[in-house]
């Protein structure tokens, strides 16, 4: 389209709804978040969408753009536009609250299901645990701790879409950082938690999570690590 406008299809409604089309001026260096903001300010005041930092740090603006989950503030229109058309929907595999706003409650509940919380082994009265940042376990944990829970990996994952029990890459990535944390007190419990139906064994190593993570994390690698650890525990009779 060379008349300087974009054809933008935006999801309106909740789980039931429809795509509505807007004509948006195409500007240089425009991001998808710019496009959504323009629509809300100039064409559709009732459009609901989420954002916060708008500089690629918080992950709040994650949406599905032409079929791929992305941070919209970090997505240049020129990189995704297809024959002058951009299609914007809320993140896949999450209930829809309104328009482009998805409900992240199931995402966080699954984080809990995978025991994505630290179990303390000491109190503030005890000396600090001497953990070297160079130790292999700490490096494995550090490779995953930058996750800001934006749910892009969760939405990219087809197993999440196909299997409602699957806790997803972010929850398992979090479990991986904890299983490698020497200060965590309940490694056995964590391995049990990720071995339930919908745990790490449901992952089929598609790698969509790695492809899409905006922070460059590798949940597939962590999940493979959890598979090896749970197998080891199973063979030692330590899993039940």
């Amino acid at each position, binding site marked *: 389209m060379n008349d300087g406008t974009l054809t933008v299809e935006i999801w309106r409604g909740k789980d039931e709804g429809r795509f509505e089309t807007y004509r948006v001026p195409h500007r240089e260096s425009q991001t998808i978040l710019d496009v959504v903001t323009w629509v809300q300010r100039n064409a559709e005041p009732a459009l609901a969408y989420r954002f916060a930092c708008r500089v690629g740090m918080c992950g709040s603006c994650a949406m599905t753009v032409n079929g791929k989950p992305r941070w919209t503030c970090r997505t240049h229109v020129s990189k995704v536009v297809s024959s002058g058309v951009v299609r914007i929907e809320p993140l*896949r595999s999450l209930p829809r609250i309104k328009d482009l706003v998805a409900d992240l409650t199931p995402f966080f509940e699954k984080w809990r299901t995978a025991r994505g919380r630290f179990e303390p082994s000491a109190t503030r009265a005890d000396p600090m645990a001497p953990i070297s940042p160079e130790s292999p376990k700490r490096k494995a944990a550090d490779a995953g701790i930058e996750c800001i829970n934006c749910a892009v990996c969760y939405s990219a994952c087809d197993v999440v879409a196909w299997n409602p029990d699957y806790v997803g890459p972010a929850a398992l990535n979090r479990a991986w950082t904890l299983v490698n944390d020497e200060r965590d007190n309940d490694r056995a419990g964590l391995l049990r938690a990720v071995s339930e139906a919908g745990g790490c064994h449901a992952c089929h190593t*598609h790698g969509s999570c790695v492809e899409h993570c905006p922070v460059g994390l590798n949940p597939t690698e962590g999940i493979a690590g959890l598979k090896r650890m749970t197998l080891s525990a199973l063979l030692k009779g330590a899993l039940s």
Partner: protein
Amino acid sequence: MIRGSRRHPGFLAAMAHRISGLLLALFLPAHFLVLGLAIESEAALEGAIRWTDQPLVKVGEWGLVVLLTLHLGLGLRVLALEFLPWRDSRKTLIGVGVAASLLVGLLFIHNLG
């Protein structure tokens, strides 16, 4: 039209692995039943083998050989990703798997002649 989030080699590899596995699993009982004809007589098995001489069936056999090699190659890729230290060369592994299956397919055609 494949969904945007699926347009990467890992997903295609996973789908090829799954579909080839499905087709092989459906074929397997038939394969066992044909071999089982030898219980009746050698002639019964021979009859079935001669039936497979038809060109279309030979194409099907070639397809099965390719499917088996593909499933094996892509399965080895999964085992490597899950049990060996991570390498970013996972895409290369897919290439190796597919190439091997095509090679075996060619050998099949060659050996038939």
